[in-house]
């Protein structure tokens, strides 16, 4: 007869075994396994006698009294989160971008209707490129600083990355808005890189203020594994080239116009 393993007996005792009935039948007929099971039962039964202090019938009320002063009077509604200073700053940046693009398009009038539309789109794209370029530059600097972070004091075991963490939180808000804008503009390549960047920013923003060298190494490895710094540099370079390409041809100055007329 094949006897039961310790693991099978534990699984049976803890309600984790498949074929519960088959094991029960086996235990009923196998003295050796039954004895083994009884020994296991005895240990667990002894552990069950360990007392848990009774915090008292009014414990829940006491917990409430202790935590109530620490709870904000009213919970923040979902839309209230959007009026936090950090989010407002990001929203402001994008709003400024949209207004600038609108005004630039409105007041840039060249020739006919089709020229006008094309020019407006160019201006809009140029503004987006500049803004995203700056955002990528800031993100790259933060990630490089994080990759080079070390304890301020060699005796310290943990590295304080709270500055990078806060910057990552700010960049995260901007990144989300730029990624959505890039998607709306149909720029899937840029949206994809911003998506990768968002994941890394999210990891950094959710890290503890102080990390052990091992945790920091894990963050570095995540940054490296995604090749995010390389991607950010490539896209920044591409954006720079696009910016140069969308730059309007230098207009004739009034003096040269006059000269031409002469």
């Amino acid at each position, binding site marked *: 007869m094949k006897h039961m393993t310790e693991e099978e007996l534990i699984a049976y005792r803890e309600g984790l075994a498949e074929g519960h009935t088959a094991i029960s039948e086996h235990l009923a007929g196998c003295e050796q396994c039954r004895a083994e099971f009884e020994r296991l039962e005895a240990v667990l039964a002894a552990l069950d006698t*360990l007392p848990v202090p009774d915090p008292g019938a009014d414990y829940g009320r006491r917990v409430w009294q202790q935590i109530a002063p620490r709870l904000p009077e009213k919970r923040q509604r979902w839309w209230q989160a959007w009026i936090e200073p950090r989010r407002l700053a990001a929203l402001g940046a994008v709003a400024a971008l949209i207004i600038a693009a609108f005004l630039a398009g409105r007041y840039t009038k060249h020739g006919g209707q089709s020229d006008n539309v094309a020019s407006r789109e160019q201006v809009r794209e140029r503004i987006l490129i500049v803004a995203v370029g700056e955002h990528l530059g800031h993100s790259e600097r933060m990630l490089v600083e994080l990759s080079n972070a070390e304890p301020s004091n060699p005796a310290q075991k943990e590295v304080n990355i709270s500055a990078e963490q806060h910057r990552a939180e700010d960049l995260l808000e901007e990144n989300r808005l730029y990624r959505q804008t890039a998607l709306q503009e149909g720029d899937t390549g840029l949206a994809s890189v911003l998506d990768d960047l968002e994941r890394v920013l999210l990891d950094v923003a959710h890290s503890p203020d102080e990390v052990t060298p091992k945790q920091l190494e894990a963050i570095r490895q995540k940054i490296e594994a995604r090749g995010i710094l390389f991607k950010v540099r490539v896209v920044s370079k591409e954006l720079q080239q696009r910016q140069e390409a969308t730059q309007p041809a230098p207009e004739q100055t009034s003096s040269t116009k006059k000269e031409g007329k002469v």
Partner: protein
Amino acid sequence: MNRMQPSVESPQAIADSDALAVERTLAGERDAFRVLVERHSQNVFRLAYRMTGNQHDAEEIVQEAFLRAYQKLGQFAARANFGTWVYRIAANYAIDRLRQRQKEESRREQPSAESKDGMQDDPMSRVADEAPTPERLTQSMELRKQMEQALAALSHAERTAFVMRHWEGCGIEEIAAVLESNSSAAKNTVFRAVQKLRQALQPLVGTRAQARAMGTEP
């Protein structure tokens, strides 16, 4: 006060009442959260105490778990069970607390040879006596000490898995979520915990019949 007694309510009635309290809290009624705190504090305390073995730590975990639950209430899925959810928050925080405590202890430069009660801690007392006398075994305080030491010797993950499964009857998926692992790994952690406890305590406990005779079986 809208307090309901868990002992006389069906699980469905509790879940419905919890869902209503969550909804009202989310709508800005802070006092609605009180119902949830008063209803679930005892259970969370029991879990926290079994995970830490320390009443002060357990009380701190209970408070922190409810504070975190309040802050994250917007993320709580309405269909989920609030009791299970706050349990998970408490278990996660208890693991952090255990890690922190371990770190603090390892930082102490000169570990004291004295135990908490000021008595000299004889390392030999941690070793299970190969041939314990019935008199010694009947000393439930001694056995209790050994059991507490055996639990303390488990890794944080093993202790969490054992407490959640054996004492709190949590599902493997739930344990896996707290341990940030998969179901198979969580199951193995439960097995490992029981094996270690058995190894440490069986020489003291013997068989179930002996345990019954010793009065260590409920």
